[in-house]
């Protein structure tokens, strides 16, 4: 196969690393003492970070309001189950759709913005939604959370048991399927168009690329994935409270993605693993001052691993496997 075809096929093929990554999650299920509840939440954080990666990593748009879509998905799943639609899988899809539609509308609103203005508008919209949900106690139960959320067993068979086995497998399956779709998407011409618009919107205009349409679509898509992550959280914890759309969550997911590495689709999961695991560790070690270590970790990441852990690890692995002499500084092309 001529070299250029191999070049593109190479990018699309599932590498050994990727398969090992997903297999590890399956193996973790069988390890007797593994903390399935924590791993499920890491997966949910990871998927949530991947939704932000579509925006930030692939289209270069930072957002301080991604938790708004996460929260919309979480509450939609909550309301569905409260009004009788307790089947989880369809509930997940509907939640993603609702969040996606709101994402499309948000996309049209923030179209012309970038930089700090974009951060502030997304922050403002997120705060408005949080304030509304927290204050309307009759509608959402406010701070005490939405009453009456109960989810039927998956496929009618697997009940959400206490140990979290069903919850873990359900989350893993959902995350994997959504991830496979996203992976195919970013390897399609649409993904390349996003990267092009991230690098140089003016050049894209002169290639006739509908960058505004693409921006609205990627906002809708990223919102849908964030909504499904939110729905997964509601379904596995059978509870939802205003905290799901707090500013703190939007800041945490941004931190997670930057630590993991934006623009590699796996950065979200790697970042979630590092962040949630370390936060749990620091909190257990020193419950009062663990915020300090989270802050330090963030400062060090931004200083030394400018593009996140994943590229740093990949770079290390590449240098170790092939001496740098005969190999040009291969940038990990997405």
């Amino acid at each position, binding site marked *: 196969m001529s070299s250029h075809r191999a070049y593109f096929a190479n990018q699309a093929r599932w590498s050994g690393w990727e398969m090992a990554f997903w297999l590890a999650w399956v193996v973790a299920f069988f390890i007797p003492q593994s*903390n399935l509840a*924590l791993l499920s939440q890491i997966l949910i954080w990871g998927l949530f970070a991947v939704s932000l990666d579509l925006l930030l990593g692939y289209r270069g748009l930072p957002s301080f309001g991604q938790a708004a879509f996460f929260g919309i998905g979480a509450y939609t799943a909550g309301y569905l189950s409260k009004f009788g639609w307790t089947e989880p899988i369809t509930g997940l899809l509907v939640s993603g759709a609702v969040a996606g539609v709101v994402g499309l509308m948000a996309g049209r609103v923030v179209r012309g913005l970038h930089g700090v203005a974009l951060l502030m508008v997304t922050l403002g919209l997120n705060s408005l939604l949080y304030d509304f949900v927290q*204050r309307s*106690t009759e509608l959402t139960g406010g701070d005490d959370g939405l009453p009456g959320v109960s989810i039927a067993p998956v496929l009618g068979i697997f009940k959400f048991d206490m140990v979290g086995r069903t919850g873990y497998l359900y989350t893993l399956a959902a995350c994997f399927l959504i991830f496979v779709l996203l992976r195919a998407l970013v390897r399609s011409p649409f993904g390349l168009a996003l990267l092009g618009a991230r690098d140089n919107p003016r050049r894209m205009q002169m290639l006739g690329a509908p960058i505004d349409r693409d921006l609205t679509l990627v906002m809708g898509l990223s919102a849908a994935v964030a909504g499904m992550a939110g729905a997964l959280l509601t379904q596995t914890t059978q*509870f939802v409270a205003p905290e799901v759309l707090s500013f703190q969550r939007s800041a945490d997911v941004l931190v997670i993605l930057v630590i993991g590495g934006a623009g590699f689709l796996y950065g979200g999961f790697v970042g979630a693993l590092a962040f949630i695991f370390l936060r749990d560790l620091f909190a257990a070690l020193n419950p*009062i*001052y*663990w*915020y300090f270590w989270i802050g330090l970790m963030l400062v060090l990441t931004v200083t030394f691993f400018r593009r996140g852990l994943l590229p740093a690890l990949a770079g290390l692995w590449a240098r170790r496997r092939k001496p740098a002499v005969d190999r040009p500084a291969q940038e990990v092309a997405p």
Partner: protein
Amino acid sequence: MTGLIRRQALAALAASALLSAPAMAQETVKVGLLLTYSGPSGLAGQHADDTIKVFQQRYGSTAGDKKIEFVKRDTTGPNPEVAKRLVQELIVREKVQLMIGPDFTPNVLASAPLITEGKVPTIIAGAATTGIIGEKSPYLMRTFFAIPQLVAPLAQYAYKTGARKLFVLVADYAPGHDAENLITKSFQAQGGTIAGNLRIPMRSPEFSSHMQRIKDAAPDAVFVFLPQGELTVQFLKAYSDSGLKASNLKLLGTGDITDEMLLDVAGDTALGVITAGFYSTYHDSALNKQLVAELAAFKHAPNVPIWDALRLIYDGVAAQKGAPFNGDKFMAFAKGRKFESPRGPIAISASNGDILQNTYIRRVERRDGKLVNVEFETIADPAMR
């Protein structure tokens, strides 16, 4: 994830096992402790730890023939997702047989199904909303307070002492809305009228507009319900800065707004404030005086709900001497139990496990150089008799 206390406890256990004669292996009852140690409300967790230290200094770490071992976890505030995971971790992996907390209502609601399924008697020491204890899980008990226990007596007191037009100001969140409905209903039941009500945002650095609304309504008393923290301190400051305090307009509230944790921060702005509370460090009882003295070393007030939870656990475990610990037996023992608490006589309701206790009307006064809540009226809980 071994908590600090757990490591010390393990070391102590190993030491005692070596030293003591090879008696029958002493059973250890593990007690899960779910409090907030970090973030804005991290203070409560630290005060609870000190209270536990004092309790264990006095009563040791064994009850009857069983050893009590605490497993500590930080819920990081009202964070249902984290709280539920930690409860699951404690029940499934740490195999705790008793639990104190989690604090905050959303955390309790999220964990209730697990507590029921795990059959782990759990004592709530930090969530006041109604509709949790007895309804969400048969294994829940409470040593904290329920909002109606303070609000209803306060309405009666206000009317009795001449208030006819009451202004109701609450923070705009679920417990605030509960308190608003309760005070309105009970005050109107007495024959009083509501001069006006206001729900202020949870994050509200600027209070002058709220004070102006109170002035406009010209009430003869003001009822306030706010979460413990900066809102209370700012409200009291604004109340005095705006001249409302000088016009000696009576200010009534639940015990939260004059809690000992905030009293010295609020300073003189809290003087004369009348509240309905369940505990005051100035409560006149030998048990309380000794406890307050011991906690003075830690420079803060005792966390009485935690103290009473420990009392209940130690007594309950001791009652099962000679037999392995059983959760259901503990529930049967605890429900209906009456005992003396530093706050005064309390009981765990036999019907739903909620707390029955006196409500005290108190006024903030300066006694030997320190601001305290002086209790001047006791309203007994009708179900207590």
